[in-house]
């Protein structure tokens, strides 16, 4: 007999749907939204029939369900990860900028600590292959920094690292089709 699905039950269903959605980010957006809507509709129907707890139990958890959806979409075996690729593309430049900035600041602090009223131009060659030289222009202890940009090598390595980290070649349609057929 159909039961009423309470507000709390709907929240429990939404919690699972949200958790599932978070684990399906490697799917195309349209497909991810379609899965989300379908699972929500099915869970609501199941909750009305057998109760929310039983309905959620029989789905088997968001992690297992997401894994099966991803396998259904991309086939068995290793697959690409847009999440990992995005994390690399965002976090590595941020981390590099932070650490190189801190290193330059340490150099600047060394200059001003040695002589608080320092005047002159100082150059730190920077981290080899990663950044250009950083020039410090000091005037009466006030220091300005110029330079320290990423080298062209970094701009080449960042996309390569993004592709490698996300295994993005596995997203190529012809490769995916071949793997699914095997």
């Amino acid at each position, binding site marked *: 007999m159909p039961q009423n699905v309470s507000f709390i039950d709907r929240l429990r269903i939404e919690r699972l749907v949200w958790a599932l959605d978070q684990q399906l980010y490697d799917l195309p957006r349209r497909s991810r939204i379609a899965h989300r*809507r379908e699972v*929500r509709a099915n869970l609501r129907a199941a909750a*009305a029939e057998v109760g929310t707890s039983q309905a959620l139990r029989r789905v088997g958890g968001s992690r297992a369900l997401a894994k099966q959806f991803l396998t259904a*979409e991309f086939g068995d075996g290793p697959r690409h990860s847009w999440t990992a690729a995005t994390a690399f593309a965002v976090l590595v430049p941020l981390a590099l900028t932070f650490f190189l900035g801190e290193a330059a600041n340490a150099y600047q602090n060394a200059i001003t600590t040695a002589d608080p009223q320092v005047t002159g131009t100082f150059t730190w060659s920077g981290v080899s292959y990663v950044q250009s030289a950083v020039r410090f222009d000091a005037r009466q202890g006030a220091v300005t920094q110029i330079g320290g940009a990423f080298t062209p090598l970094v701009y080449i390595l960042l996309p390569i690292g993004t592709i490698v980290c996300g295994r993005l070649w596995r997203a190529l349609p012809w490769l995916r089709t071949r793997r699914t057929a095997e």
Partner: protein
Amino acid sequence: MSSSHDPQLLKGSLSLLLLHLLAEKESYGYEAAQRLQAAGFADVLEGTVYPALTRLEREGRLATRLVASSSGPARKYYRLTPDGYRALSSGTALWARHVAAVDAVLSRPLPDVPEKGI
């Protein structure tokens, strides 16, 4: 809950079962799972059925349409495509041959089973 079916056997036959059930009558995910359970596969979880339907849809064996529901969000109904009917036909024949071959082996008489300890 004890499992009444070998999971490996189920994995191999789930697509065929779903194709047959959906050829009988188009259904949405939960309904298909319910019909599968009513057919004796009570230990098949909905979490296994939904991705299997997704896979069949991706393979072009199932088509879908959204139908508004009075009791909640629109439901995605699955039905067979011509390719799905072909897959069902060839799968059924393959399954029949497989069952016949297994039966042929299992029905052979066994020699006397040796007693334990000999």
